[in-house]
C-alpha cells in the first residue's frame, strides 16, 4: 500500500504523468464544483433563514467566510509544495506552488471586498482597522510579494524556487504577523467593534449552507489550480517530444 502510494507520488512528479492525470481529474472536479455551487447558493440565498440581527445582508458571509478560509489554506498549500520543490527539486511542485499564488491572492481579495461590503451596513464604515481585516490585508501583500518575485526573475525554474522560499518565509511569519496585529488591535481600540462576540454558535440551518459553499470553493480551487498547472507544463515543456505530439494532433 505504502509502496504504491510512494510510486504514484513519484510518477506524479513527472510533468507528463501529471498532465494526463489532471486532465482526467478536471471534468469530475468541475462537475462537483457546479453541483455544490448551485446547491450552496440555493441553500444560502433561499433556504437559510434571515438573521434576526443582521437581516439579509449577513448572507454575504456565505461567500466571505469560505474565501477567507481558502486564502489561508492556499497559502499553506503553496508553502508545502514550495518546500517539496526546494528539497526534492520537483518541477511539478514548483509549478503547483506558483500556480497557487494568484488564486490565493484572488480569494484574499474577495475576502477583503466582501468584508468591506458587509462592513458598510453593519459597522457604518467601509474599512475598520480590525485585527482580522488588517492581517488579511497583509496576507494579500504576502501573496503579491510571491507573485512579484516570480515575475521579476527571468529563468522560470529559478524564479519558482525563489518564490517558493519566500512563501516558506511567509508561512513562518504569518502567525507572528497575525498575533501581533491581534495584540496591537486590543491595545489600541479595545472593544469598539467585536466581530463575533454577540453571536452565539451558528444555527445548523445556516451552517449547512456554509459548509456546502466551502466545499464548492475547494472544488473550484482544484479546477483552477490544475488548469493553471497544465498550462504551465505545456509552456515550460514545450520542447519535450510528448508536448510536440500533443500539439501536432
Amino acid at each position, binding site marked *: 500500500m505504502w509502496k504504491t502510494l510512494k510510486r504514484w507520488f513519484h510518477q506524479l512528479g513527472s510533468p507528463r504523468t501529471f498532465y494526463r492525470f489532471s486532465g482526467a481529474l478536471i471534468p469530475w472536479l468541475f462537475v462537483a464544483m457546479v453541483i455544490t455551487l448551485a446547491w450552496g447558493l440555493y441553500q444560502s440565498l433561499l433556504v437559510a433563514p434571515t438573521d434576526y440581527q443582521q437581516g439579509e445582508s449577513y448572507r454575504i458571509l456565505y461567500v466571505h467566510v469560505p474565501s477567507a478560509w481558502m486564502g489561508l489554506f492556499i497559502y499553506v498549500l503553496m508553502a508545502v509544495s514550495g518546500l517539496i520543490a*526546494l528539497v526534492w527539486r520537483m518541477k511539478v511542485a514548483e509549478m503547483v506552488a506558483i500556480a497557487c499564488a494568484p488564486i490565493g491572492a484572488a480569494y484574499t481579495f474577495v475576502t477583503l471586498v466582501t468584508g468591506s461590503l458587509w462592513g458598510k451596513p453593519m459597522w457604518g464604515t467601509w474599512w475598520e482597522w480590525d485585527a482580522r481585516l488588517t492581517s488579511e490585508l*497583509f496576507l494579500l*501583500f*504576502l501573496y*503579491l*510579494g510571491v507573485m*512579484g*518575485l516570480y515575475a*521579476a*526573475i527571468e529563468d522560470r525554474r*529559478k524564479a519558482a*524556487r*525563489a518564490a517558493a*522560499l*519566500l512563501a*516558506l*518565509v*511567509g508561512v*513562518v*511569519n504569518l502567525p*507572528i*504577523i497575525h498575533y*501581533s*496585529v491581534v*495584540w*496591537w488591535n486590543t*491595545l489600541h481600540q479595545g472593544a469598539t467593534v467585536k466581530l463575533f462576540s454577540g453571536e452565539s454558535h451558528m444555527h445548523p440551518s445556516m451552517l449547512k449552507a456554509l459548509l456546502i459553499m466551502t466545499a464548492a470553493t475547494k472544488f473550484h480551487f482544484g479546477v483552477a489550480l490544475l488548469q493553471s498547472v497544465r498550462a504551465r507544463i505545456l509552456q515550460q515543456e514545450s520542447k519535450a517530444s510528448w508536448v510536440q505530439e500533443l500539439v501536432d494532433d
Partner: protein
Amino acid sequence: MNLLHILWSLIQRDLRLAWRSRGELLNPVFFLILVIALFPLGVGPEGKLLARIASGTVWVAALLATMLSLDLIFRSDVEDGSMEQMFVSQTPLSWIVLGKVITHWLVTGLPLVLLAPLLAILMHLPQPGLWALIQSLALGTPVLSLIGSVGVALTVGIRKGGMLLSLLVLPLYVPVLIFGTAAVENAIAGMSPAGPLLILAAMLLFALTLAPLTAAWALKVSLS
C-alpha cells in the same frame, strides 16, 4: 582559523569598505531626519499632535531607512565577484551572511539608535518615552537587518529590485513596528515597557537563529 576569528575579520573588512565610501554612509541618517522633518509639515506643527504620533513616526521612518539601505548588505559583493569566492570557501555561507548583517546593523542600525534622542526632540516625544524608544530601536533594528537580509538575498540577482524588495520585506516588518511602538506608548502611559521589549528580544533571537540560514539558502537559489 576558528569561526569567531573569521567573523571578526569579515566584519573588519566590511567596515573598512564602508568607511572608504563614507559619503554614502550618512545617507540613511539624512534620509531619516528628512522623513521625520516632513511629518510636521504634513500634519501641522502642533506639539500635542506630534507627541501623539511621535513613536509611530520614528519607527516608520526607521523601517524605511533600513529598507532603503538593505542593498548594502550583499550587492557590491555580488557585483565584484567576492560573493562567489565566499561561496566556495570552507566557511558556512550562513556564517558569512551573519557577519554581513552585523556590519549592516553597525553601519545603519546603530546610528539610528544613537540618533533617537534628536528625533524624539524633533517630534516632541514625551520625556518618559525616550529611554523606551532607544531600547526598542536597539532591539528592533537588528531584527530589521536580519529579515531584510533574506529579502535582499532573494532579489540580489534582479537588476531593479528596489520596489520589489519593499513589497517582500515590509509585510514582514509589521510585528517589529507594532511591538516597537507599543514599548514607547507603554512608557509614555506610565506603564512598564518590559513586555513589548521582551517580545522584541524574542524576535531578535528567533531571527538571529533562522534568518542567516534562510538568507544563505536564498543566496544559493538566486545566484545559482
